[in-house]
């Protein structure tokens, strides 16, 4: 969280949201820098969508404050809302309008006249492969097209902060990769992106920074790389040609341990650079290496470790 002096795209301070007796969001604070690609992870019911609803104005705030590029989303709600584009998880298109009009009317609600946005609407339809369906209503679209339309609609008023709630839920592998490419391209173009996802590989592959939320509280937050190395160390496992009776002192010093199979040695917390010297020591101790596996921790390990707590 480098406070580099510039105005953050999103600043949440001590946000709480209560529904009757249920505290859905419990004192969350976070900061998303302008230009970031930020992942918001957590199990179902953790408070992700509630937090997003509070940011975009679909949920009232019980306590705390939210600023979008320095604009308080209650006091300065018009500016704040204009800066955000939301791609919600559930399809919520106007079924009385054509695909093209869905974009033009959405821009209208943002205060943009049709003649100002027609060209941009056509451009977005083209870019998202929807031009051939421009005159249809959304019920005629395939699942993948509906997902792309959600994204196109969120972008029609050129928001600086794009919020995506589960953008690839129920989407096939091919389209997911296509959407990832689109999102990377948008982010490279300067749009700050916040996404929630169930697919941890998605967050690991796309997001530079991550917050993990559980039971309405932030369990961990930081750069994706750091979270992964900090919470889940890498493991090297080496299988040798015969059972290891006694550990040579050099191997013991590297933290070798045995676990079940007498022919396999495990080394925890090794960096990739330490692999070659370790293998050399094994051979120096008189064993021949038959197989080896280096497994880096991934976000899933981190997630499970934090959420199980």
């Amino acid at each position, binding site marked *: 969280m480098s406070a580099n002096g510039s105005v953050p795209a999103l600043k949440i301070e001590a946000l709480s949201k209560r529904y009757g007796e249920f505290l859905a969001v419990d004192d969350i604070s976070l900061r998303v820098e302008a230009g970031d690609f930020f992942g918001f992870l957590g199990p179902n019911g953790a408070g992700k969508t509630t937090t997003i609803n509070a940011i975009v104005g*679909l949920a009232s705030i019980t306590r705390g404050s939210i600023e979008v590029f320095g604009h308080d989303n209650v006091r300065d709600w018009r500016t704040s*809302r204009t800066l955000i584009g939301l791609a919600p998880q559930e399809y919520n298109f106007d079924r009385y309008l054509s695909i093209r009009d869905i974009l033009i009317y959405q821009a209208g*609600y943002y205060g*943009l006249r049709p003649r100002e946005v027609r060209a941009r609407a056509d451009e977005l339809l083209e870019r998202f492969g929807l031009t051939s369906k421009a005159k249809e209503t959304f019920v005629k679209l395939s699942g993948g097209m509906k997902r792309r339309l959600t994204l196109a609609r969120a972008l029609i008023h050129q928001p600086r902060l794009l919020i995506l709630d589960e953008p690839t839920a129920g989407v096939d592998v091919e389209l997911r990769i296509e959407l990832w490419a689109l999102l990377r391209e948008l982010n490279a173009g300067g749009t700050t992106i916040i996404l929630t996802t169930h697919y941890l590989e998605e967050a690991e592959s796309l997001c530079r920074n991550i917050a993990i939320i559980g039971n309405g509280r932030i369990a961990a937050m930081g750069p994706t790389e750091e979270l992964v190395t900090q919470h889940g160390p890498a493991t090297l496992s080496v299988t040798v040609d015969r059972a290891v009776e006694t550990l040579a002192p050099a191997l013991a010093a590297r933290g070798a341990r045995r676990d079940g199979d007498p022919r396999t040695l495990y080394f925890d917390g090794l960096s990739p650079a330490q692999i070659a010297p370790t293998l050399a020591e094994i051979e120096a101790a008189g064993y021949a290496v038959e197989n080896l596996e280096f497994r880096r921790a991934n976000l899933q390990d981190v997630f499970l470790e934090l959420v199980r707590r």
Partner: protein
Amino acid sequence: MNRTEATAVWGFGNPVGLGTLVKRELVRTLKVINQVIWPPIITTVLYVLIFGLSIGSRIPQIQGVSYAAYLVPGLIMLQVIDATYSEVSSSIFQGRFMNSIQEMLIAPMSAVEMVLGYVIAAVLRGLLIASLVLMVGALLVHTLPRNWPLYLLVTVLVATLFCSLGIIFGLLAEKFDHIAVLTTFVITPLVFVGGVFTTMRFMPPLIREVSLANPMFYMVDALRFAFTGTGDVPLAVSLGTVSALTVIALAVALRMTALGVKLRV
């Protein structure tokens, strides 16, 4: 209530957004044109033919006009009320049910702009329906308003009133069925006993007293004043009642939208 006003939503700063909502509502009306245009025409023709011209020919003049001509203002109210209430309530209910209303809720639109958008669209729809019924009346029984400004004023007020009620019940309804409750059990019976078909002077004294508590009576009476120049109660009373009801319903609709009742969680 542990609810803060979802956003400070009383401003007026997004006229394009407001215009977009008006257009959207009118597009929606055009998509369901068979439910909007033909029923009032056909119903009116049937009422005028059966009640007005056949049965009514045996009834003496009321307020200086034939019974058929006497019917027309009441029929206009009947249709305007139905068209505005049912269209607005179902538009809002569908928007909530399918979440498409969120397209507006996440945009920089205030409660005033949203409510005004629905009201303007409802007034335009109401004026259209009123002119259709009026045309039927002009063709079949040669009756037209004598006081056009009053005719327009009452139509606009009633359309605004029932648009506001449409917003209120469109927000409160948990299922589509709930919307019909008001139409079936309140609006239709009150309109029918509210002087659409007969003057209070023909009614027994007791019912005459009860009628004074029926808000629909004042709407019909005020509009009929624009046609006949006379009414069962003074114009100031009928017009005042209609205006007061409109202001109250509009204020409730605005307040509910600003609080985000069943719109924002």
